[in-house]
């Protein structure tokens, strides 16, 4: 798919079938997030969740523009990235449901979904911490001469923590093949980002402080995201260093768990729902001549995938208690003394 979209771009537009595929991917993610929400309310998901419904276009658009061997680093709000990179909805939901069949063997949980075999190198629950780590994967790619890029996705709130600053400066100085993609959804938890940040675009407006190129993009338009990420990745692979992208988007649910998001001004959610990434893609599909039935069929396929994933996750085994004491060390164990 990667090759397809870039090809279609250079051809001056996205091929309808490619875009329909992206649409379906987003629909699967949306459905899985809804399912996660329902499962949480039903008491089947413990701990916490941070749902990415609304953010799908960022993950799917970026993944479409990346190589399979590229590296992706996400936050605790990372279900969409895990799935966009190839973790199955079933193994993600199983992880949320504390199943041994979870993608992290129920040792990580919602905030730490990881699919290393697909280059999805983790979800990080300490805000901003993964930006230097992503830079490190990029450094490694440079040292090994593989042409891989690393992408760090992070929230608007992450732009005020020190690790952001250190990562951007060092990546710029070393000209690392890393993309810093901010998912600006206007809020850090319950606080509007504008009230705690000195600039309007917390990521893009800071890029000049590191002499980096930046772009503010429509994070709800999967094509716009794929396009921008594709260009930034190409620059990175060409040795031209990092790019900062700030994707404007919105989360449909509250911050986490059962947050009712009362801090949002009336009408704001509706405005954004009108620009739902699925709607935006639908509209693009219509323009490209894709029939409503084809879109409905994609919706149905996605719904089926989600339903099967829920069933599979529910049916999964509980974690093996022995797992509690494994995987600390590379030898598989947890022995710290003789």
């Amino acid at each position, binding site marked *: 798919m990667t090759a397809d979209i870039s090809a279609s771009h250079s051809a001056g537009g996205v091929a309808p079938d490619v875009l329909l595929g992206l649409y379906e991917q987003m629909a699967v993610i949306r459905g899985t997030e809804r399912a996660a929400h329902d499962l949480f309310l039903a008491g089947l998901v413990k701990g916490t969740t941070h749902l990415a419904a609304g953010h799908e276009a960022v993950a799917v658009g970026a993944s479409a523009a990346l190589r399979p061997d590229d590296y992706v680093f996400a936050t605790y709000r990372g279900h969409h990235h895990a799935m966009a990179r190839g973790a199955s909805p079933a193994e993600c939901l199983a992880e949320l449901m504390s199943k041994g069949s979870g993608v992290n063997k129920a040792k990580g949980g919602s905030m730490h979904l990881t699919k290393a075999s697909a280059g999805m190198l983790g979800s990080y629950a300490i805000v901003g911490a993964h930006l230097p780590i992503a830079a490190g994967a990029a450094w490694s790619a440079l040292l090994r001469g593989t042409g891989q890029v690393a992408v760090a996705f992070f929230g608007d709130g992450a732009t005020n923590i020190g690790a952001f600053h250190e990562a951007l400066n060092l990546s710029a100085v070393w000209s690392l093949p890393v993309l810093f993609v901010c998912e600006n959804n206007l809020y850090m938890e319950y606080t509007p980002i504008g009230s705690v940040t000195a600039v309007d675009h917390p990521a893009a407006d800071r890029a000049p402080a590191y002499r980096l190129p930046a772009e503010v993009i429509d994070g709800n338009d999967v094509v716009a995201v794929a396009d921008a990420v594709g260009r930034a990745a190409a620059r990175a692979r060409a040795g031209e260093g990092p790019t900062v992208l700030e994707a404007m988007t919105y989360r449909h649910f509250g911050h986490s768990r059962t947050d009712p998001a009362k801090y949002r001004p009336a009408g704001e959610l509706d405005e954004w729902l009108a620009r739902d990434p699925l709607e935006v893609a639908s509209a693009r599909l219509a323009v490209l001549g894709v029939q409503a039935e084809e879109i409905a069929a994609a919706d149905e396929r996605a719904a089926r995938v989600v339903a099967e994933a829920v069933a599979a996750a529910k049916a999964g085994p509980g974690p093996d208690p022995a797992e*509690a004491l494994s995987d600390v060390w590379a030898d598989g164990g947890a022995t710290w003394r003789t």
Partner: protein
Amino acid sequence: MADVITYREAVAEGIAREMRRDRSVVCLGEDIGAAGGVFKTTEGLFAEFGGERVWDTPISEQAIVGIALGAAMTGMRPIAEIMFSDFLACCWDYLANEIPKMRYMTGGQVTVPLVVRTANGGGLGFGAQHSQSVENWALAIPGLKIAAPSTPADVIGMMAAAIRSDDPVVFFEHKGLMASKGETAPPGHVVPLGRAAVARQGSDATVVALASTVPLALEAAGQLAVEGPSIEVIDLRCLVPLDMATVLASVGRTSRLLIVEENPYQGGWGGTVASIVADEGFELLDAPIRRIAAACVPLPFADALEDEVIPTTAKVTAALRMLLAY
């Protein structure tokens, strides 16, 4: 009977009482204002005291505690919230190198009356980066006072002592206790830092516990009491000042010591307590000193796995049985 209050409410109540009596007390942290904090432990403060005294911050843990330090050095009594204690790692330089050393390295020129509050501990399925009990991190740093209450009344009384303290205090609020209830504290209630509480008297063995492990120890003691043995439970309440007098006196009566910690065994605070008893209380002991602590692994997500790792009543009971049988 006195009013009942939750541990969570006690935090806000404890802060509010001090803010009413001292205008130099101000709060800062992420989402602590109108939102009342993610654990609702600052609920009502913004409404009562306003934005002049309750400040929302960006996600900037270093700035939060760094600013609190600068304010404390210049006449204020700031209370900084670090949302989860795991995030203390993001501003550890301030906790390890700046705040606790300021007074000493200036030869006593500067006073640092600040409180860093933080939600601590596991048991809620928040995973490896949101579940740690890290009082032991603070214990490694001379110059910090360390409070970790286990009851609502102690939350209020120790909060008063912490805020009034002219020394920096790290105040650990246990996430697993937030919903627990207890008597509220009478007006003016102050629990001096550094005094352990004998939470239950007993004569056959001493259990030293802290925060979340206090209810575990009490439950275990209750279970064993049915069978006969009488267990003394000491709630340390603070790690610094560390009330070894109370611990040693108790061991003097019981001759047996079990320490129950939520932090990992390696580097846990119980090591310090055990080593003091193994030295100064050596002749009091009729049995080995036992420690029940978390396994030396990161905290796993699934409840079933987390239970394997952190102390449970069953583990405490089993350890006590072994100790009593020694």
